[in-house]
């Protein structure tokens, strides 16, 4: 149904729709303003008192917005938002209308009237509520909003529900308008529909209809068809009833005529007006139609002619289309038309071409000037002919033989260009190929010669010129034989024969002769040349000067052989790895390295990697990857596991082989089994380490030695077997005064001032200890050194030893010497001292002896001379008392007794003293004596003392000891005597004599002999006085005694090397201990030990 629409009308209707929506919006706004600002005129438009309620105004606003947004469905920007907003607004209005209607119908209260504005109380003309819109408005809004919602719907036939709804609303609105128009007063009384509302509703509903002009009523109105024009013409006739009605109302209102007449009249008027309108319309339409028909007739006729012409044209066109590629462009080059062939060859579809500029086919093959020249021509109205290379859609190029024909306007200016093309791609290709071939032939360095079956040359390329030296002119038409060396002339016949048979001679190597007579090796291929009927008409020969090649090959072979030999001798495996396939070619030695005795059929990087020792695999792989990515040399060492399982070290080195393009496609390299080398290296490293360690140790030792040598006070000199000094330490220099100097041995003594101990005779060189040591004898000697460098002569003590190497061969000698000057001096002094001492000793001894002798004489005389007078005193006084005692008074007797006592005591004292003195001179006569017997004897001796007393003797075991028996006897006499004496008050007196073993060690254990009594004892306070001469701890009248006894005992015990001590308690008794034998010091220890032991025993 695509009758063209009058665009002007379309536009007009569209504007009306816009205007209607705007009108609605403004009414709504003014209404709301009126309510807000209480300007009632906005809402009544003078048709008081019915007011447009607030809801109505709001609804108008909303639907107005909705229509505005929906009016133009061509505008694409924000279409979706517009649509949603519009539909939302319409929906709101729909809800309002629906709810209002419901309120009206069912009397419910939703508060719709209150939701926008509170209606003023003045509103009287309320049906249900003041703010509620009239049911008509509600219904109208319902319809309009629904229409807006479904504005784009439409049935197949073209009916649009939107139109129906809006027309319905319009009709309802018209009701209001008409009633107001007819009589405003009645209008006010009868209706609750405000004027603004009805007007706006009517306008709006029309607007909705006009909004869509594609289909339905809107479309109809715009159409240029019969129906459209009819609709446009007759629609105004709808106002006839309105007019008549108004007239009728006016007449009725005047009341001039009766109802019946008015009706008749109005009907009549209506009838006539309508008939008139229809008739006018029909006439007009008919006229138009008749014109139309005439036009159509003429048109048909012309169209018949046209059709025929067109048919012819079409046929021609068709024919053209079969042959040619056709395209029509406008003056700008925009493609207007393309035919099927065009599409076929360019691979674009019609849609893709039409509207595009012809430039899309530009292949870039032609220069800018080429196209400029073309355009220039056709712009001038000239036909242009040429060959163009275009690019198809897929990028492929095709050649077309093009004729561009400009279609000229009447003024001679082109209006269109038609391009007719023929596909000459193939032809072009052939041409190109031929050219190419010709160029190839010509540019080839090989000689390409063509000859006929008789061997006459008929083609000669530049390469042939180069190879044979002849120019084309010189050989054309000449036989081929001119190139042959004489001995090979027969080859030509053979060749020609084979050619005639249709065979080709390929890679035939032979010798030919150049123009300059030089012989060249050539390799030629000769093929038969056939004409179009496949008959052989000649031969074409391609010959290459392979002299150089042959030479190069020979050189290569040689070089290859050398290379192989070099690699094999060096035991290097040779390999090449294709980087694309990762397969490798290699020499046999390579496989051998991996343990294979016969080469593997194939080898790849993976196979190689499998042989790599697991620990090394990752490293090798990474290294390989990085070498490939960086394009650097591949140089590595790793461990491999050979076929036989043995682990070996290999070194491989490879480098990229680059194609001329720079791509690395290949890595070639060598591999070597370096296990031995590695082992050697390891060993060497170890050795080096060892060496370093030894060196360090040596250094340390050497340093140590050096410092030792430097620090020792002994001079150390080492000389080799020739007598040259190898070592001369600082001490040596210090002692001798000079350092090492290159002096032959025979001059040593002289140079250094070495003398014999007598200090005047030079030391005989041949006796020099160092020299003797060098000769192999170790020896010592004392020397005296005196030279100008020394302040004083020094005595040295030397000791020399030979130095032998490990084979025992004398390699020199070492001499160590010490400065003994001081020692010598000391020795001398000691000797002097000794002599002095001895002299003194002798003197002393003499003195001592003299003293002893004196003492001897003294004691001797004492023993005699002192005693005698004592005896006399005693004797005479005794005689006195005996013979004259009776005549003496008792007192006198007593005195005499005292005299006798005195003499006795003195006699005792003298004896004791004498014995004490004698002890000093006396030497011990040691004998092993049984002490027990001695003790028993002593006790026996002392028997008189024991008379009349009760005495308990406890004599324990007493060992035999080595002692001087008589002296020990004295000791016992003394001690036991004392015991007896001091225990006199006791009854019984207990006297114990025994021995205590003291000391851990039996052989060191010395017996401690004791004498214990239970007598009066003494206080330990005075113990230190016990053994003093003449010291007594008791009064003489209590206990007699000289006070010498214990001193004597001590002297005796000390002479024996023992100790004597006592322990006592006052009134409890005393114990005297003594030991015999041992040194003084140990005796002291013994005493202490003994005391301790005894104390321990006693506790």
């Amino acid at each position, binding site marked *: 149904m695509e009758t063209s629409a009058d665009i002007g009308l379309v536009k007009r209707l569209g504007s009306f729709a816009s205007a209607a929506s705007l009108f609605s919006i403004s009414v709504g706004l003014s209404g709301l303003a009126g309510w807000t600002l209480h300007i009632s005129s906005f809402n009544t438009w003078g048709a008081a008192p019915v007011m447009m309620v607030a809801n109505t105004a709001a609804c108008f606003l909303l639907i107005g917005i909705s229509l505005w947004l929906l009016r133009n469905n061509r505008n694409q920007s924000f279409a979706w938002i517009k649509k949603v907003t519009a539909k939302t607004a319409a929906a709101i209005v729909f809800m309002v209308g629906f709810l209002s209607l419901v309120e009206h119908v069912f009397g419910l209260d939703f508060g719709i009237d209150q939701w926008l504005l509170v209606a003023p109380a003045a509103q009287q003309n309320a049906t249900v509520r003041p703010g509620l819109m009239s049911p008509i408005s509600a219904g109208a809004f319902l319809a309009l909003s629904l229409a807006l919602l479904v504005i784009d719907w439409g049935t197949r036939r073209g009916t649009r529900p939107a139109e129906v709804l809006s027309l319905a609303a319009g009709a309802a609105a018209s009701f209001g308008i008409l009633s107001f128009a007819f009589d405003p007063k009645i209008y006010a009384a009868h209706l609750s529909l405000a004027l603004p509302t009805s007007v706006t509703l009517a306008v709006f509903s029309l607007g909705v209809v006009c909004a869509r002009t594609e289909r339905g009523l809107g479309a109809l109105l715009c159409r240029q068809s019969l129906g459209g024009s009819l609709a446009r013409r007759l629609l105004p006739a709808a106002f006839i009833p309105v007019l008549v009605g108004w007239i009728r109302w006016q007449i009725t209102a005047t009341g001039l005529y009766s109802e019946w007449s008015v009706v008749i009249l109005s009907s009549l008027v209506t009838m006539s007006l309508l008939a008139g309108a229809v008739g006018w319309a029909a006439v007009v339409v008919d006229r138009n139609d008749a014109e139309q028909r005439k036009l159509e007739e003429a048109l048909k006729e012309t169209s018949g002619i046209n059709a025929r012409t067109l048919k012819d044209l079409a046929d021609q066109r068709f024919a053209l289309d079969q042959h040619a590629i056709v395209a029509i462009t406008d003056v700008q080059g925009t493609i207007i038309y393309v035919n099927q062939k065009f599409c076929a060859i360019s691979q674009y579809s019609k849609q893709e071409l039409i509207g595009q500029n012809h430039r899309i086919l530009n292949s870039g093959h032609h220069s800018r000037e080429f196209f400029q020249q073309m355009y220039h021509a056709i712009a001038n109205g000239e036909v242009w002919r040429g060959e163009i290379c275009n690019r198809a859609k897929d990028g492929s190029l095709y050649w077309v033989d093009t004729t561009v024909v400009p279609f000229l306007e009447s003024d001679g200016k082109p209006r269109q260009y038609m391009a007719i093309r023929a596909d000459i791609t193939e032809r072009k290709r052939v041409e190109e190929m031929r050219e190419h071939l010709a160029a190839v032939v010509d540019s080839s360095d090989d000689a390409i010669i063509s000859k006929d079956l008789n061997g006459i040359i008929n083609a000669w390329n530049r390469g042939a010129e180069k190879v044979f030296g002849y120019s084309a002119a010189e050989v054309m038409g000449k036989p081929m034989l001119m190139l042959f060396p004489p001995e090979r002339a027969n080859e030509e016949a053979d060749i020609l024969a084979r050619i005639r048979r249709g065979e080709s001679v390929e890679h035939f190597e032979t010798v030919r002769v150049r123009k300059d007579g030089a012989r060249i090796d050539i390799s030629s291929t000769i093929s038969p040349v056939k004409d179009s009927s496949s008959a052989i008409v000649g031969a074409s020969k391609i010959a290459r000067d392979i002299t150089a090649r042959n030479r190069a090959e020979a050189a290569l072979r040689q070089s290859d052989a050398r290379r192989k030999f070099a690699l094999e001798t060096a035991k290097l495996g040779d390999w090449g790895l294709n980087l694309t396939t990762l397969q490798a070619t290699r020499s046999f030695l390579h496989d051998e390295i991996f343990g294979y005795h016969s080469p593997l059929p194939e080898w790849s990087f993976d196979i190689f990697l499998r042989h790599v020792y697991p620990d090394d695999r990752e490293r090798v792989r990474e290294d390989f990857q990085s070498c490939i990515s960086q394009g650097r040399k591949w140089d590595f060492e790793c461990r491999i596991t050979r076929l036989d399982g043995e682990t070996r070290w290999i070194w491989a080195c490879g480098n990229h082989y680059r194609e001329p393009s720079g791509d690395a496609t290949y890595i070639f390299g060598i591999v070597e089994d370096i296990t031995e080398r590695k082992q050697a290296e390891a060993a060497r490293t170890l050795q080096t380490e060892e060496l370093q360690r030894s060196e360090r140790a040596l250094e340390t030792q050497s340093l140590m030695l050096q410092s030792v040598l430097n620090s020792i006070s002994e001079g150390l000199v080492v000389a080799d077997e020739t007598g040259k000094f190898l070592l001369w330490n600082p001490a040596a220099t210090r002692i001798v005064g000079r350092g090492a100097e290159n002096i032959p041995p025979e001059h040593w003594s002289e140079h250094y001032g070495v003398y014999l101990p007598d200090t005047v005779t030079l030391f005989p060189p041949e006796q020099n200890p160092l020299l003797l040591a060098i000769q192999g004898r170790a020896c010592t000697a004392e020397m005296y050194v005196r030279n100008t460098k020394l302040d004083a002569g020094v005595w040295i003590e030397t000791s020399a030893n030979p130095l032998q190497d490990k084979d025992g061969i004398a390699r020199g000698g070492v001499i160590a010497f010490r400065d003994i000057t001081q020692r010598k001096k000391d020795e001398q002094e000691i000797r002097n001292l000794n002599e002095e001492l001895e002299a003194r000793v002798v003197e002393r001894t003499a003195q001592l002896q003299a003293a002893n002798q004196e003492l001897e004489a003294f004691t001797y005389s004492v023993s005699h001379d002192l005693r005698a007078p004592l005896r006399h005193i005693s004797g005479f006084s005794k*005689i006195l008392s005996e013979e004259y005692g009776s005549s003496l008074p008792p007192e006198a007797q007593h005195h005499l007794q005292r005299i006798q006592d005195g003499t006795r005591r003195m*006699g005792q004292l003298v004896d004791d003293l004498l014995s004490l003195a004698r002890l000093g001179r006396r030497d011990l006569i040691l004998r092993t004596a049984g002490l027990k017997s001695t003790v028993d004897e002593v006790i026996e001796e002392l028997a008189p003392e024991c008379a009349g007393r009760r005495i308990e003797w406890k004599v324990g075991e007493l060992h035999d000891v080595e002692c001087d028996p008589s002296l020990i006897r004295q000791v016992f006499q003394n001690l036991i005597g004392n015991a007896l004496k001091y225990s006199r008050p006791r009854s019984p007196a207990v006297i114990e004599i025994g021995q205590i073993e003291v000391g851990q060690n039996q052989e060191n254990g010395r017996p401690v002999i004791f004498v214990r009594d239970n007598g009066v004892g003494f206080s330990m306070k005075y113990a230190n006085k016990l053994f003093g001469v003449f010291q007594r701890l008791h009064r003489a009248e209590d206990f007699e005694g000289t006070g010498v006894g214990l001193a004597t005992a001590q002297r005796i015990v000390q002479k024996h090397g023992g100790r004597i001590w006592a322990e006592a308690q006052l009134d409890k008794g005393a114990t005297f201990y003594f030991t015999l034998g041992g040194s003084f010091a140990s005796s002291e220890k013994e005493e202490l030990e003994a005391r301790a032991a005894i104390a321990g025993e006693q506790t």
Partner: protein
Amino acid sequence: MTERPIEILLVEDNPDDVELTLHTLRKENLANHIRVVRDGEEALEFLLPDSTQDERSLESLKLILMDLKLPKVDGMEVLRRIKADERTKNIPVVILTSSKEERDLVKGYGLGVNSYIQKPVDFDQFRETIKTVGLYWLVINQVLVCEAPSQTAAKGTVA
């Protein structure tokens, strides 16, 4: 000249000692036949006269009590002479001295002294000692009577 036969010869230089000794001997009735000489020379003259005319009979001499410390000729010397001489060597010699020196003992016994007595200081003891000694040598001990040479010669003819 004939004398009473001397039984004891006392060689002592100290007069007190002489008196004490004699007193004691007398008390014990041993002092009848005592000859006292005051030094060594006299002792030697008595015992070993140079001339035969001073020769006397020593047959009755039973004991020589000798002190050591004597003027002129020392006791030891006298002892030596006595013991060296045939005429006197058999006569018991008892050294009676204050000294108990070992030296003297050694020498004495070396010379062949028959007994060595130390004179006690205490008179009682002294008395006891003298009594014992005297008793022993004079009463208990048997002496070897030596004839005078002339008598010996005279007796020689008797078989």
